[in-house]
C-alpha cells in the first residue's frame, strides 16, 4: 500500500527530511507540518505536534486544555489504536499533573449503605474484567457539520479503540452497597474547574451502571493508563460516547434523584429525534442527554484527494463499528450508493470495538471518483447518506466519502 501512502504520512516524511537537512532538530519539528482536515468553509489546517509526553504525531486542535486528534493514517491497520496515537480531550485547563498511587483513593458515597474510599491496591485485588471498546468523542467530526457549529472543530479522528482492563463498576458499587433509593450514579475526576464553574461530572442510570459491562479501567491496551488518558483509573462505558468515560475518576456519588448538574442538564444534550437531527432553524424540540453510539466506518489506507492507478483494482481497507452492537457488514460504493460491493471483515474482537475490513474494487476509469463506505450493525442499523445536524455538533455518523482521481 506504499503507492497509496496517505497525505499525512507523506508530510511527516517530508518534514523529517527538511529537519535532517537543516541539521538542527528542535521541538517544533512536527509543528512545521500542517494537516488539512478539509473542513467546509475552513479553517482546516492544523499543526502536527509531538510535544505531548507519551504521544506520537497528533493533530493539535488545542494545547490547553489538550485536544489532540488522531490522524486517520495512524489508525490504518490497527483495530486497537496505539496509546501514543489515541485522541485526547479534556474540558478544563487544570488537569491532573501528578498522581501518587499510594495515596490515591476512589470515593463512593451518597445513597450507599457505607461510604468507602478504595485504594488502588483494593481495586487490583478485585475480580478482573476486560473489554474492547471504542472511545469516541460526542463531537467527533463536528468540523464537517454544515452549517458549521461552534465547539472543538474535530475531523474524524476523535475516536479510538482499546482493550480496557480493570474491574466491573457493579463490583465496586456492591462493596459500598447501593441503597434502594438510588437512581443514578454520578462520576467525577481529579480535573478541577475554574473558580465557580461546575465540576465536570456525568451520570448514568443505576441499571446501566450495574449492567456488568460498565467498568473502571486501570489499563489501556496492556499498559497503565497514560496521564493524558486519565491515570490512574477511568470509567469505560462500552457503546456510549466518551463524555461518560470520566478520566482520573476519584468520586462516585449515588444519587436519589436524577442529576440536575450542568454537564447533564445543559451540556451534551441532543435532540430527541431520529439520528438526533433537526433542521438548522428548528426551535423548541425536546432534548435528552447524549447516549449510545451508532454505526460508523472509515477508509484508512488512502486519504481524500489522492491519485490512484486507473488500470488496476483498488485495494481499500479500513475500520468499522456498530455502536452498541457488532458489525454485521461493510459495503463500498463507487456510484453514490446506487450499487454496493461487500467488504471482507476481519476477526470479531468484541462488539463494542473496531472491526477491520478490506475490499478490492474494480479498476476505475480515468477521472474523479467518490468512494463511499457503509457499515450495517448487528442490530440492523445502517449508516445513511442523509445529513445529520444539531446545534451541538454531536452524533455525526453518516456514510463517509472520499474522492480519488484515477489516472
Amino acid at each position: 500500500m506504499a503507492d497509496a501512502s496517505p497525505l499525512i504520512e507523506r508530510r511527516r516524511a517530508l518534514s523529517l527530511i527538511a529537519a535532517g537537512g537543516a541539521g538542527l532538530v528542535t521541538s517544533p519539528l512536527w509543528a512545521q507540518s500542517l494537516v488539512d482536515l478539509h473542513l467546509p468553509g475552513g479553517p482546516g489546517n492544523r499543526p502536527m505536534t509531538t510535544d505531548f509526553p507519551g504521544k506520537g504525531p497528533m493533530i493539535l486542535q488545542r494545547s490547553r486544555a489538550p485536544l489532540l486528534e488522531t490522524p486517520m493514517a495512524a489508525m490504518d491497520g490497527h483495530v486497537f489504536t496505539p496509546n501514543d496515537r489515541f485522541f485526547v480531550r479534556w474540558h478544563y485547563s487544570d488537569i491532573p499533573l501528578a498522581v501518587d498511587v499510594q495515596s490515591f483513593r476512589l470515593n463512593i458515597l451518597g445513597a450507599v449503605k457505607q461510604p468507602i474510599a478504595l485504594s488502588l491496591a483494593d481495586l487490583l485485588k478485585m475480580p478482573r474484567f476486560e473489554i474492547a471498546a471504542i472511545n469516541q468523542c460526542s463531537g467527533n467530526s463536528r468540523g464537517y457539520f454544515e452549517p458549521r457549529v461552534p465547539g472543538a472543530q474535530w475531523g474524524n479522528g476523535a475516536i479510538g479503540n482499546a482493550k480496557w482492563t480493570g474491574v466491573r463498576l457493579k463490583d465496586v458499587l456492591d462493596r459500598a452497597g447501593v441503597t434502594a433509593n438510588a437512581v443514578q450514579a454520578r462520576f467525577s475526576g481529579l480535573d478541577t474547574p475554574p473558580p465557580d464553574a461546575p465540576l465536570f461530572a456525568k451520570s448514568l442510570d443505576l441499571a446501566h451502571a450495574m449492567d456488568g459491562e460498565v467498568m473502571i479501567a486501570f489499563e489501556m491496551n496492556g499498559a497503565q493508563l497514560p496521564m493524558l488518558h486519565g491515570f490512574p483509573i477511568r470509567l469505560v462505558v462500552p457503546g456510549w460516547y466518551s463524555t461518560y468515560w470520566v478520566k482520573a475518576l476519584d468520586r462516585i456519588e449515588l444519587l436519589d434523584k436524577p442529576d440536575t448538574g450542568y454537564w447533564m442538564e445543559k451540556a451534551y444534550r441532543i435532540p430527541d429525534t431520529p439520528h438526533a437531527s433537526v433542521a438548522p432553524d428548528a426551535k423548541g424540540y425536546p432534548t435528552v442527554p447524549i447516549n449510545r453510539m451508532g454505526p460508523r466506518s472509515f477508509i484508512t489506507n488512502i486519504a481524500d484527494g489522492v491519485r490512484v492507478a486507473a488500470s488496476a483494482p483498488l485495494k481499500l481497507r479500513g475500520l468499522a463499528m456498530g455502536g452498541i452492537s457488532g458489525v454485521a457488514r461493510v459495503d463500498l460504493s463507487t456510484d453514490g450508493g446506487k450499487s454496493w460491493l461487500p467488504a471482507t471483515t476481519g476477526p470479531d474482537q468484541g462488539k463494542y470495538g473496531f472491526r477491520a475490513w478490506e475490499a478490492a474494487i474494480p479498476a476505475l476509469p480515468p477521472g474523479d471518483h467518490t468512494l463511499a463506505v457503509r457499515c450495517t450493525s448487528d442490530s440492523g442499523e445502517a449508516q445513511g447518506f442523509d445529513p445529520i445536524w444539531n446545534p451541538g455538533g454531536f452524533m455525526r455518523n453518516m456514510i463517509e466519502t472520499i474522492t480519488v482521481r484515477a489516472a
Partner: protein
Amino acid sequence: MISARCLGPALLAVAGVSLGAAAMAARQAATPAPKSISGGGITLKSDTLTLPEEKAAFPEGAAGELITNNCTACHSAEMILNQPLLGADTWKAEIDKMRGAYHAQIAPEDDAALVAALTGLQTPRP
C-alpha cells in the same frame, strides 16, 4: 545472554544494600524511585505530566490583546483560531455561555468590543 544482562542491575542493587543507611537515604532523596502498587499481575506506578508550552497566539494589536485578556485564562488561543466563520450573534452567545456556565471573568461592558474583535479575527469566506 538475556538473563546475564538482567542480573547486572540486580547485583548492583544487592551491593547497594551494604552501603550505610544515611548514604542510602541520600541516594533515594536524590533519585526517588517511582512509587508503585502491584496486585494480580499488574503494577501501577505513580506518574506525572508536563504539558508543553503554548505556541499559538492572537495577532498583535488591541483586538488580539482584548481576546487574550478575556478568553485565555481558561483555554489556549487555538480554540478561537480554529472556529469557523461564526458571525456576531454566535460569538455573543459564546461569550454569554463562557460567562454564564463557566463564570469566565468577562466584563459585560467589554462585550461589544470583544465581539468586534472576534469577528474581525476571522477571514471572510471567499
